[in-house]
């Protein structure tokens, strides 16, 4: 074998703390290495050209590049291999940047470590064999999870692009958080007026199939061929018949249901339609408060329903959809406000969350857009906004900035003034984060034109005093404590991952961070991809985001799906397991351990049972290979021989010098 080794400087990223020429010189002495060289930027066009030239000139049949993480550039160099006329699996990468030069400043030890890493790559490469991909048909349907603004945008773009699109939404109505907002910053557009038409488009689009009140039960399969089981929860109302007239709700005697759409501001009836703009505009029964379910008698709604849509015996239903790709757009939820005892969150009725305040401002909200204190219905004379409630707060385990609170707080201060011009508005803030087109100007307007008093400092306590609220905090610019009287306190509660985000991630086999936000494949270059091929992200499920960013990401995810579906067939990864039928004893332990059902039982030449891998299903994890006692299954490209060659390469260098 003739191997070429290329040691990348990556400018000073590697060369700053690794002696790259010395690594190349050491590589030159390794077995089968016919050519070794250091190069300023291996991934650059001249760098890649250099590799191709060397392949031709020295007749190389395998290449090692020692540079950054293979998670970064393995795909790049594999394409280079193909351009050089070699099989792309005759290539190995040594990660001497993320794992060496960036984590230690000791040049001598780093160089030694880099040489070892090149050595193991060479030893592995000596056992590599050319692999070829097979192709398989792609199911060009896409499923979008979540119908907030990001999911709606993604679904509409996919559907407009001609793709058969399935949308699954957990709640009764589309629109997510945006549908609850009164206005949007920095234009003060009416939120639902902007979003409403899109929601209508989605329900009427010929390419879109909508499952509302539904959740993902199970996800099977792989890119191009997923099978998704959807659970539609019982609404106890036949939505094929319900015309959304609302008579049922008007006659319902049980009026104590949690009003989820209005964020718990006020109550709703046991049978209800979330809002006048709800889409789909269908009623559902909350069995926890419905008298028919709790007491066994009532059936008022059944009597008044003009179309006889009520069905108390309805059960959850399961559906299976076959799709080729998934877009996850499950959004965020506010943190639980009752953990902020110092602000009286969840304890004092006139301390509300920012989302509750949106509902209080909204003309379609429980107060009809009249600003009133929840405790006694009086008009507030002073409203205090507290920002960073649970954001940038290490003591709560939430060190991150929720990103949009500064902006919506400014918006809410402005809206407060337009509702009640005489009302005082105060904002306690740590810093103002307003990077965005027209954003900082907007905050300035809140301060100057709408005369909101911005106080730089934290609030230490909110407590009731003489029928109002007393807000004590510090003005750090003054260096003094301040105590303000307020009728309403609005908490800009930080954003956390959506409820159930982790469970869904586990079903989708995608990663999430410490807070439950989904991990993108690369923070800069693959922001909508995940580590699971065919699963894409859109919106705040990846991290807190405002509306324009969520919409952009929805479109981006749709674009990715369309690019994926632009081919009729997809290439499978040839790094799969294969069974050596001579060694296989037919115990079929592998069949029982495979998480994907990629192993089937076949009949051997003499009628005995044997295992066989279904290549198109195998994901290449290698669990079977370790399970196999007679070692009849090998995972291609990660065979026992290849991995042991790496181990041996390391151990040999350690043992040999001392055994002399």
């Amino acid at each position: 074998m003739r191997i070429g080794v290329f040691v990348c400087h990556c400018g000073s990223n590697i060369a700053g703390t690794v002696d790259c020429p010395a690594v190349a010189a050491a590589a030159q002495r390794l077995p089968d290495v016919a050519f070794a060289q250091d190069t300023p930027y291996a991934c650059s066009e001249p760098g890649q050209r250099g590799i191709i030239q060397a392949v031709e000139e020295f007749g190389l049949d395998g290449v090692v590049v020692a540079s950054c993480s293979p998670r970064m550039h393995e795909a790049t160099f594999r394409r280079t291999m193909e351009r050089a006329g070699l099989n792309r699996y005759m290539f190995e990468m040594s990660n001497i940047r993320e794992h060496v030069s960036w984590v230690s400043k000791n040049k001598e030890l780093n160089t030694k470590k880099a040489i070892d890493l090149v050595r193991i790559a060479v030893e592995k490469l000596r056992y590599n064999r050319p692999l070829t991909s097979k192709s398989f048909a792609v199911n060009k349907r896409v499923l979008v999870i979540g119908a907030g603004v990001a999911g709606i945008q993604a679904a509409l773009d996919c559907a407009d692009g001609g793709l058969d699109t399935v949308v699954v939404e957990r709640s009764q109505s589309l629109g997510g958080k945006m549908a609850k907002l009164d206005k949007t910053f920095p234009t003060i557009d009416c939120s639902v007026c902007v979003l409403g038409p899109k929601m209508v488009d989605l329900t009427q689009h010929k390419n879109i199939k909508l499952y509302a009140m539904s959740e993902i039960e199970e996800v099977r399969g792989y890119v191009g061929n997923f099978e998704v089981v959807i659970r539609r929860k019982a609404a106890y109302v036949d939505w094929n018949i319900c015309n959304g007239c609302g008579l049922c709700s008007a006659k319902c005697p049980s009026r104590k249901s949690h009003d989820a759409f209005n964020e718990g501001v006020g109550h709703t009836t046991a049978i209800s339609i979330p809002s006048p703009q709800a889409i789909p505009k269908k009623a559902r029964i909350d069995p926890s408060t419905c008298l028919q379910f709790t007491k066994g008698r009532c059936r008022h709604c059944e009597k008044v329903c003009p179309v006889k849509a009520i069905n108390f015996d309805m059960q959850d239903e399961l559906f299976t959809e076959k799709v080729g790709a998934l877009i996850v757009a499950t959004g965020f939820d506010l943190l639980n406000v009752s953990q902020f005892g110092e602000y009286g969150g969840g304890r004092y009725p006139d301390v509300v969350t920012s989302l509750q305040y949106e509902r209080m401002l909204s003309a379609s909200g429980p107060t009809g857009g009249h600003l009133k204190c929840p405790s006694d219905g009086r008009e507030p004379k002073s409203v205090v906004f507290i920002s960073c409630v649970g954001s940038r707060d290490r003591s709560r385990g939430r060190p991150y900035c929720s990103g949009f609170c500064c902006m919506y707080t400014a918006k809410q201060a402005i809206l407060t003034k337009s509702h009640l011009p005489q009302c005082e508005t105060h904002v306690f803030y740590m810093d103002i984060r307003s990077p965005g087109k027209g954003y900082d100007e907007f905050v300035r307007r809140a301060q100057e034109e709408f005369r909101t008093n911005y106080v730089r400092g934290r609030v230490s306590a909110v407590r009731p005093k003489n029928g109002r609220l007393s807000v004590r905090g510090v003005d750090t610019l003054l260096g003094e404590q301040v105590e303000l009287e307020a009728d309403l306190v609005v908490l800009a509660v930080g954003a956390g991952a959506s409820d159930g985000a982790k469970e869904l991630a586990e079903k989708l086999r995608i990663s999430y961070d410490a807070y439950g936000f989904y991990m993108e494949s690369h923070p800069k270059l693959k922001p909508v991809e995940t580590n699971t091929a065919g699963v894409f992200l859109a919106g705040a499920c990846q991290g807190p985001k405002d509306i324009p960013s969520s919409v952009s990401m929805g479109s981006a995810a749709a674009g990715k799906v369309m690019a994926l579906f632009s081919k009729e067939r997809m290439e499978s990864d040839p790094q799969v397991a294969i069974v050596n039928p001579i060694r296989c004893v037919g115990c079929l332990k592998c069949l029982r351990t495979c998480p994907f059902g990629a192993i089937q039982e076949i009949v051997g030449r003499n009628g005995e049972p044997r295992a066989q891998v279904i290549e198109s299903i195998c994901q290449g994890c290698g669990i079977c290979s370790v399970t196999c006692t007679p070692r009849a299954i090998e995972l291609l490209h990660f065979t026992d021989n290849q991995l042991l060659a790496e181990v041996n390469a390391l151990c040999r260098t350690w043992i040999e010098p001392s055994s002399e």
Partner: protein
Amino acid sequence: MQDFYDAPAHRLMRLVQLGRRAEALASSSLWLCAGCGQCSARCPNELDVAGVLETLRQMARRAGILPQPNVEAFARCFLNSVRAHGRVFELGFLLRYKLASGRLFEDLDLGPKLLKLGKLSLKPHSCRGQAEVEAIFQRFSNEGAHERN
């Protein structure tokens, strides 16, 4: 307590960050912190503000910087009483504190009330543990003596 502070807690934290030792130790705020710990419980950066103030107070005392001499005198008289009796002898230490601080006429109204309620004992509680407490203080002052040498 911040109403009585000469420098607010966040300013003291900043002085510590910048290493402006003399200014931090000279602040009388250190001596007016009642140690309720609200600041530490609230700090979004998880600074133990009250703990830092406590340490600054010890540093100031060692450096002999006492902008609120009465607070220090109070602590000193209290500990002397503990050292002498094992437990604190309330009447004895208050008298000593008054002599030390010169605030002879403050709190004169409390004594008669306590006496009436039978709560102020006129002689210290004897306690066999006193010798051990004395030994702790003795070893502590020896420690200081070593440091000084």
